[in-house]
């Protein structure tokens, strides 16, 4: 929208005294910054692709890892991240509407649409915080087994399979049992220390934990986050019950029990840590961009409210911060595809 309809000769265009790109210095520099920033993100996402293709272990599947909604039980694959994507797209739309209002010198319109953009940015940041928190805490936890064995497992449709597990195979607990076991583990770690802390004593006795040594899961889940298919059959999320579940439980590898994700140690999503490492780094780096974007938007919104741009005679600043905000949305489009879909 920057004077593209003017007709200038080549000599005039490149002869100095004007920008050959017909954009102001500030807008051009914003574009150049975004070019370099996009190269950074391209490098990160390509690195993710390299590690993922070079990984010898099964890689977690997006729609099996991210299937929770706040406050709800059950499986809602990709619904939460779809909502986050939608929020970011809508905040991009309100931003471009603020730019359009700026071109009409409509101060009220700019303040309104930029305000909605800021709200959308905050909602996205909050959603990402919840997503991280859920990812870190995990759902149920998992462990590795210390000997090969064959067990009977059933899928959702009720078909049963004989599955052979290798030594070191990764199996998962149901989220109900896993959370109970995690609490019991924590309670077993410090059985009397609660009483020493005065006020906590009452709390500790009121809460009864099961004896950790007698806890046995009724169900064990195979392939909870990864995929496995044989002969055209989908063998995701197979459930092992009864004696076979006890057999798996009894052969737990010492110290392999893991809950959620950590960048320091194993995580329940994959034996390989890289999955969580890349997830934290790339979505964190993107989240940092969203955070700075919201701050910049907030500053410019205050300037717009005060009438700085009205006095300046144009609202080009909205265009410049708009470029940055759309870029944040653009990066998320790629993060969404590579971390959640593919």
């Amino acid at each position, binding site marked *: 929208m920057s*004077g593209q309809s003017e007709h200038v000769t080549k000599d005039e265009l490149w002869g100095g005294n004007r920008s050959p790109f017909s954009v102001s210095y*500030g807008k051009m520099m914003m574009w150049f910054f*975004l070019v370099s920033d996009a190269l950074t993100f391209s490098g990160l996402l390509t690195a993710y692709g390299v590690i993922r293709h070079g990984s010898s272990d099964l890689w977690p599947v997006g729609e099996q890892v991210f299937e929770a909604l706040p406050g709800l039980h059950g499986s809602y694959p*990709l619904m939460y991240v779809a909502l986050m994507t939608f929020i970011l797209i809508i905040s991009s739309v309100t931003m471009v509407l603020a730019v*359009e209002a700026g*071109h009409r010198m409509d101060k009220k319109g700019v303040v309104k649409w930029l305000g909605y953009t800021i709200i959308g940015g905050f909602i996205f940041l909050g959603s990402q915080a919840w997503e991280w928190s859920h990812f870190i805490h995990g759902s149920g936890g998992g462990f590795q087994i210390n000997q090969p064995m064959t067990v009977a497992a059933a899928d959702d449709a009720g078909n049963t399979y004989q599955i052979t597990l290798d030594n070191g195979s990764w199996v998962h607990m149901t989220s109900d049992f896993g959370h109970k076991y995690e609490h019991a583990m924590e309670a077993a770690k410090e059985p009397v220390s609660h009483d020493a802390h005065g006020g906590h004593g009452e709390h500790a006795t009121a809460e009864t934990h099961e004896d950790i040594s007698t806890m046995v899961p009724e169900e064990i889940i195979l392939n909870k986050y990864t995929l496995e*298919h044989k002969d055209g059959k989908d063998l995701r999320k197979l459930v092992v019950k009864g004696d076979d579940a006890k057999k798996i439980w009894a052969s737990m590898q010492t110290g392999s029990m893991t809950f959620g994700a950590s960048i320091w140690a194993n995580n329940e999503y994959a034996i390989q840590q890289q999955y969580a490492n890349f997830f934290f780094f790339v979505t964190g780096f993107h989240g940092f961009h969203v955070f700075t974007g919201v701050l910049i938007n907030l500053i410019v919104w205050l300037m717009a409210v005060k009438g700085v741009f009205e006095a300046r005679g144009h609202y080009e600043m909205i265009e410049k911060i708009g470029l940055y905000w*759309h870029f944040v949305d653009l990066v998320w489009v790629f993060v969404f595809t590579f971390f959640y*879909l593919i």
Partner: protein
Amino acid sequence: MERDDLIVNESYALNAKHDEAAGKQIRKKLYAVTVLLTVITIIEVFMGVAFKRNGTFTWETIKLTFLVLTLVKAAYIVLIFMHLGDERKNLKYVVLLPYVIFIMYLIFIGLYEGVSVQEGHNIFG
């Protein structure tokens, strides 16, 4: 040095203005793009949930479809929302050419390397 955003005459920002009638046209286009982006996102999520990776519908085709849909979304954001489609041709090239040249090469060489590493794992354990 003069601040370009304070220049009143010959300012590119001043050329970028339009009236209410033109604004109505632009907004119509923006809403159409919004609907398109939303629909593509819904299709992507539906595909991600619905298609199991069991070989009945080749997963590679789905993956390729995801990439194409992502690029379509990215193109609409860059060309319409960021107004790159309305800029001069030389600015378009300055912004887009680095990706066509360097990132395509980086992706090619990176994935080639990754696949080779995996083959190494398969052969040597």
